[in-house]
């Protein structure tokens, strides 16, 4: 019996030591929490950009990558210091309601409509996005929507409106709302041969393309603007005002803007800096 107890004790002690050893690796007091979107995270931009910022300032940036809708909701609750998202009307509303201090443009890219090589709705090469969506709807070709109130989803809803199609009415038949992130939606689209709206950065970095390709691109309405907002410390005193502001100053300043422009994947530039 004594043996057993000492064996157990030794094991418990070893386990505790192993656990405390790993705990130290994450200790860092100078950090901000960035509520951002899956497109910026999945494209690898943050992995490229944030270490440069951290090295210069000693501030660690902890990214929570969710849809823009959820990011705005989290920031509304004060769970984050800075917002980095892409749904301008929703962002302006967020600031107008006093949850954010002010909003600044950071960078842009564009949305594209991807679809199977067979192109059942015959929209390949089109430029007019609403017209292409109308053709997809008329052909009742499958379309995979985010359906999660994200920035991409908000854009898609505006496009359907411009096309004069009530896509929601067909939800469950050819219009399929996945209710998940960009990557999961693309996986689903590729799986069922459905068209989908995606930002170009996610598409270029996406690895499960199957026989899919970009079918529609180049329309002005497909413009995708990213903005950055400091969460209002007046609403949530826990917000790290100085650290958050120094990130915003950096990312909208010369060095940050240059860093964004220099990020390339497969030789293609993914984001174009446009802070004023």
């Amino acid at each position: 019996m004594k043996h057993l107890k000492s064996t157990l004790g030794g094991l418990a002690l070893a386990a505790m030591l192993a656990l405390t050893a790993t705990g130290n690796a994450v200790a860092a007091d100078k950090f901000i929490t960035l509520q951002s979107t899956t497109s910026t995270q999945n494209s690898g931009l943050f992995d490229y950009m944030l270490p440069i910022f951290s090295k210069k300032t000693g501030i660690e940036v902890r990214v929570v990558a969710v849809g823009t809708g959820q990011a705005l909701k989290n920031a509304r609750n004060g769970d984050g210091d800075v917002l980095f998202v892409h749904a301008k009307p929703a962002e302006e509303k967020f600031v107008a309601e006093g949850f954010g201090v002010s909003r600044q443009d950071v960078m842009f890219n564009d949305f594209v409509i991807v679809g199977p090589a067979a192109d059942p709705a015959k929209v390949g090469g089109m430029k007019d996005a609403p017209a292409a969506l109308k053709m997809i709807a008329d052909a009742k070709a499958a379309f995979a929507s985010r359906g999660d109130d994200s920035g991409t989803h908000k854009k898609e809803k505006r496009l359907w409106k411009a096309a004069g199609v009530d896509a929601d009415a067909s939800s469950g038949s050819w219009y399929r709302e996945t209710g998940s992130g960009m990557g999961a939606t693309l996986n689903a689209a590729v799986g069922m041969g459905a068209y989908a709206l995606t930002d170009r950065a996610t598409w270029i970095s996406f690895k499960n393309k199957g026989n899919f390709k970009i079918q529609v691109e180049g329309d002005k309405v497909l413009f995708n603007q990213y903005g950055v907002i400091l969460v209002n410390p007046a609403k949530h005193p826990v917000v790290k005002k100085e650290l958050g502001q120094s990130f915003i100053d950096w990312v909208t300043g010369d060095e940050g803007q240059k860093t964004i422009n220099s990020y390339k994947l497969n030789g293609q530039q993914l984001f174009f800096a446009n802070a004023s």
Partner: protein
Amino acid sequence: MQDFAESFSLAFQLIFSADADLAEIVLLSLKVSLSATMCACMIGMSLGAAIAIFRFPGRGVLLVLTNALMGLPPVVVGLAIYMLLSNAGPFGTFQLLYSPTAMIIAQTVLVTPIATALTRQVIADLHTEYDEQLRSLALGPFATLTTLLWDGRFSLITVALAGFGRAVAEVGAVIIVGGNINHVTRVMTTAIALETSKGDLALALALGLILIGISISVNAALMALKGTARRFAYE
């Protein structure tokens, strides 16, 4: 099929290259899920044994509740814990959201009903078997409880393993309260979800294979411990 073969070779490459990022994620997974299992067992085993042995008002309700809560959806637990720990929530001042502690809390909530319900069954069976003997020794209620827990220890290891399995496999709760932050709260399951969303299915599956390997190792280690302990106990 190509993806499967690629995943297996990727999994081996990752393990044998001793990838630092992977090691960090694996250790955090173990830390969070083992801690949660430990906390949940401490609460659940005492509670389960108490429900098995004692008769008190509301016992039936508690019994049904713990059995039902074994199927608690992780995403609901994650959401509830998020709302409690959020800066807009009642426990926001502790600044626990997006930390490993938050993940341990969420998994503890998930595992506790499992530990409680399974322990109750183990102890209830033992209690029926030992009832007369315990009575003849005139043991008090607390002594009865500790005696039965000690005698049921080998079965209770299986209870702990069931709880650990639940904790280490879930993604719904930890991704909400942890936020899947690189180097801070990224664990195996959230890393798998992330790679899947990047469309890197081969890497995602490779991570899944490693997670299964971890689960097998933990189970094997505890089974070995059980075997050793049993030998010592009956020597």
